[in-house]
């Protein structure tokens, strides 16, 4: 992980915290509390065993109860350190959607076509590069990936249009 300049600057521009914590600040910790709480209840349904011979449910219960307590304190006193959601955050949702679509078409159309499409979308629309820069990448990168993963590393990917050129036809 890397530290970035914008993470550093947030310290200086922080306004004095308001006396009452807005409820939005509690949301992340509250969500976590709900999740680990549910996990703790699930753990209770497993055989707990006894302290001298702990069963399969004992350790999950110990860890989730610990998480419930720590998350619970965080709900009461939410720590600082979250980033603001901006308009570009919506882009991440679109980006995630594009990855799901990639996974869906990957087994059908193969590595080359799906990767070219992903590059097209990401480089042209998400990063707003020029068309020529996008096209070069969208053509060159899939071929490079094919050579590395299929030809050199021999990973059995789904059938691909480049199989014909490289003479690697599969049934």
């Amino acid at each position, binding site marked *: *992980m890397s530290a970035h*300049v914008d993470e550093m600057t947030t310290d200086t521009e922080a306004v004095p915290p308001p006396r009452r914590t807005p409820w939005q600040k509690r949301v992340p910790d509250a969500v976590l509390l709900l999740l680990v709480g549910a996990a703790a209840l699930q753990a209770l349904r*497993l055989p707990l065993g006894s302290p001298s011979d702990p069963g399969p449910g004992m350790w999950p219960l110990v860890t989730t109860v610990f998480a419930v307590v*720590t998350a619970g304190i965080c709900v009461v006193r939410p*720590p600082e350190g979250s980033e603001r959601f901006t308009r*570009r955050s919506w882009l991440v949702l679109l980006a995630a959607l594009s990855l*799901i679509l990639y996974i869906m078409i990957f087994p059908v159309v193969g590595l080359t076509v799906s990767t070219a499409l992903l590059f097209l979308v990401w480089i042209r629309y998400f*990063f707003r590069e020029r068309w020529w820069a996008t096209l070069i990448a969208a053509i060159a*990168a899939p071929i490079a990936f094919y050579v590395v993963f299929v030809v050199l590393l021999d990973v059995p990917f789904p059938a691909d249009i480049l199989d014909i050129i490289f003479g690697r036809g599969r049934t």
Partner: protein
Amino acid sequence: MTAFDGLGQGFLVAFEPGNLLAVLVGVVLGTVIGVLPGLGPTATIALLLPITYSMDPTASIIMLAGIYYGSMYGGTITSVLLRIPGEAASVVTAIDGYEMTKKGRAGAALGISAIGSFIGGTITVIGLTFLAPVAAKAAIMVGPPGYVALMVGGLFLVATIGSGSKLRNLSMAGVGLFLATVGQDPISGVPRFTFGSPYLLSGLDFVAIAMGLFGVGELLHTLERTERGQLVMTKIKGIWPKRDDLKRSAGPIARGSVLGFLIGILPGGGGVMSSLISYSMEKKISKHPETFGKGAIEGVAGPETANNASSTSAFIPLLTLGVPSNVVLAMLFGALMLQGITPGPQLITEHPAVFWGVIASMYVGNLILLALNMPLVGIFVQLLRVRPSYLVSIALVIVLLGAYSLGNNAFDMVLVVVFGIIGWIMLKTGFDPAPLVLAFVLGRILETSFRKTMLISGGSLDIFLRDPVTLIVLALIVGFIIFAAVRRLRGRTPRSLAAVVAQSTAQTAPSPADDDVVAFDLKETEHDQR
């Protein structure tokens, strides 16, 4: 077998052509990703885990280790030239390193960093060579209760020393331990939290979690913050430090080596922490503390030496105890487990080729890095021309294809993307994924040790108070809590050192409005250079 015999054997392993190639690839890659902002060693190792799957265990660990200490060298370059730390451990270098660049002394700053890193790295490898076998011998005597204490203590310290909210880090560690229990119970065979899914019976895949949280999560975060932009670079001149520079840096480099070595052994110590402490230490003992922040070479030499030294000595607890002291080492721990090797005291006897091969490769790796970072630094600087759009897209496809290759099905790809989205949300909401992954990696072993301990003691917790290792760990934790409490009582703000440093950096940093366009003009630098 003495350390000399072991090292001799290690060099035979390290000089095998495949392993030489592995160390070369590792350190070059480490330098490259150190230079490229937004892709740190953790994400890179996560990206490469599927590829190491098919590699020889020794070669894969040699390569991954090279990425780690190589990134410590590479991260310096962007810190000095652009005030953008390529990875977290170079944050303090950005202060005086960038000031030196503004004065036209970028070359000297980079040169002294490379020399310091080499000296610190090499001294530490020598220390590692002689200390590791001794430590491994002592570690054999650690019983299950000692292990539980070491792992819990390590997790506690990593969570509380690390960045962000301590409580949140602790609860993330709890979540990581819990996630490790998904799948069949290792002792009774009862399926846990699988919801009837056959995919989950073997547990959540470490590679998928690591690639998702660190790989995809970071990439989505980079996408959010980066629009089209390009870094304009200049030529680096005067890389060989002058006699005066060397004289001023000798002390900081010597202190940085020792400090880095000691801190690297502690949980949470590798990398960031050591460079921060070295910086504040050098500033304190300097006769001219006022020069710090205005381009003092001591402020570059000390921290850069320390972060390299600590990233090397951090291997001691991993190779001898099987306890990773930070998240990068946790990734290496995971990589070893994938190869069917459990790191721990028995590693040195059961897999001497891995143990000594990795250590010997570090001597070689540091030499290569010195060569890469002195005469060839200009080439790496050119890497800053790579557009973030290409970088992110390429890294993303590598993650997805790697995920597919894990089980040759799309299920793992979905898992990686889901964890990627979770990772991004965590980054946005201020949850650090590192304690989670660290805990997840240790989870299974910790649970087994815990249950063994309970069986031995007949359910009584007294056993922890009778175990010497446990007592030492407990004393450390209690000491740490008292130290933190006293500091708070004395009215010092509990803000971490990192925040203080960040603030002093931020005062001169480019305005946050520039963030979305990562474009900096270094023309000014060019004029200033001789």
